[in-house]
């Protein structure tokens, strides 16, 4: 009897939550700025989500999961890269962190790398709202739930984040064309 209940629960988890695994990974990847770390943290967060799943009362499973992923990411950053949470990187620090690669020169002018570096240079609280809005297509209500902020502040947070992104992009336009390094684990899509 216990087993029947349990497998039902797991089946429900696999049906409702597991499909949002890409969303979880993408969000973690942008918060942590690394595919390898994102993979670890996503796995940890999914297992945690399963443990809390009985407390999930239906509704927006993606937002519920992303909230757990976000918590796991910030905890991870605090433990492993607290500097990410307190510093607003200038591009020189950021380039060191990103590393260099032989293929870099070939793709440096690439629009994607250019945008990726700009987005990664933003502080996490700006970066996360942009990723949730522009990549994940979340509504303000979902962003408020995921980032634990009042819905009234989502619009202004986004406005500030976009302004920052514009600034970084306009500052780096010249340099990107000249060929700046890209991160090693930017990886294939």
């Amino acid at each position, binding site marked *: 009897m216990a087993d029947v209940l349990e497998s039902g629960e797991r089946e429900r988890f696999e049906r409702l939550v597991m499909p949002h695994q890409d969303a979880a990974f993408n969000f973690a990847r*942008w918060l942590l700025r690394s*595919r390898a770390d994102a993979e670890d943290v996503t*796995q940890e967060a999914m297992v945690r989500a399963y*443990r809390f799943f009985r407390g999930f009362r239906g509704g927006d499973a993606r937002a519920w999961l992303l909230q757990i992923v976000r*918590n796991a990411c910030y905890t991870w950053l605090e433990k492993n890269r607290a500097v990410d949470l307190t510093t607003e990187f200038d591009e020189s620090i950021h380039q060191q962190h990103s590393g260099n690669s032989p293929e870099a020169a070939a793709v440096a002018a690439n629009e994607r790398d250019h*945008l*990726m570096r700009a987005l990664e240079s933003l502080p996490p609280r700006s970066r996360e709202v942009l990723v949730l809005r522009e990549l994940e297509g979340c509504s303000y209500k979902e962003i408020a739930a995921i980032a634990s902020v009042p819905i009234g502040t989502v*619009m202004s947070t986004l406005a500030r984040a976009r302004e920052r992104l514009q600034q970084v*992009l306009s500052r780096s336009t010249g340099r990107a064309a000249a060929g700046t390094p890209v991160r090693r684990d930017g990886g294939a899509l």
Partner: protein
Amino acid sequence: MTCDLSRSLLHGYLDGELDPLRAEEFERHLESCSQCIAQLGEQESLRASLQSAQLYERAPAGLSTKIKRQIASAEAESDDQWSWVPIWRWIAVSAAIVVLVAVAYLGGQRILAGRSGVEQAELTEVIDAHVRSLQPGHLTDVASTDQHNVKPWFDGKLDYVPPVRDLAENGFPLVGGRLDVLNGRSVAALVYGRRKHFINVFVWPESGKESLIPATGTRNGYQWIYSRAHGMEFCAISDVSAADLHDLTELLQE
């Protein structure tokens, strides 16, 4: 000079998040504000380039298998924690009638355990954090009886402002503050003294979800009081009386 609306409403408009009335209002504003028109154009092209750059990164192949495997093994582990398992085995070799009764009983327990298991996870974290803090050198990250030292210490470490107050006048002198992690998120731990005991008050913003921590109770000799006020959730825990914890929580929520 920048138009104020270009830094606020414009984004709600761009995202289709304004109610019809405000959207209409903003459209009327657009007719006469060249700055907002220019900014809207820039934002639209920024969005277009973000979306065409294929920045979305999918999970690597194999991650889902790893997750499923770990869930299965985590499940097996948590089953071992249920002390009734060996009893169940023991009963299983006993008389058939006993087995029937036991299965009926344990089946019921299992359903109850579904909820209390999660409750236990949240509560256990609170109790563990309290016990951990009582180990030498772990009580506070900032030790001060002055709320004007403790409060600013949290600045930039949390995305909310915990209500820090010295309550020495009321018999709860402030001892200090600490960052702790509950339920995967960083929370403020305020430490108060009460006679020779320490009280931890964990404070975090309401998650919007119903909390699974019971309003009050005792476990392992520790008493806790859980409540909400002003958009925050509070959990005070200590070995002092529940009445003391009530008083402290109420004072903090004033």
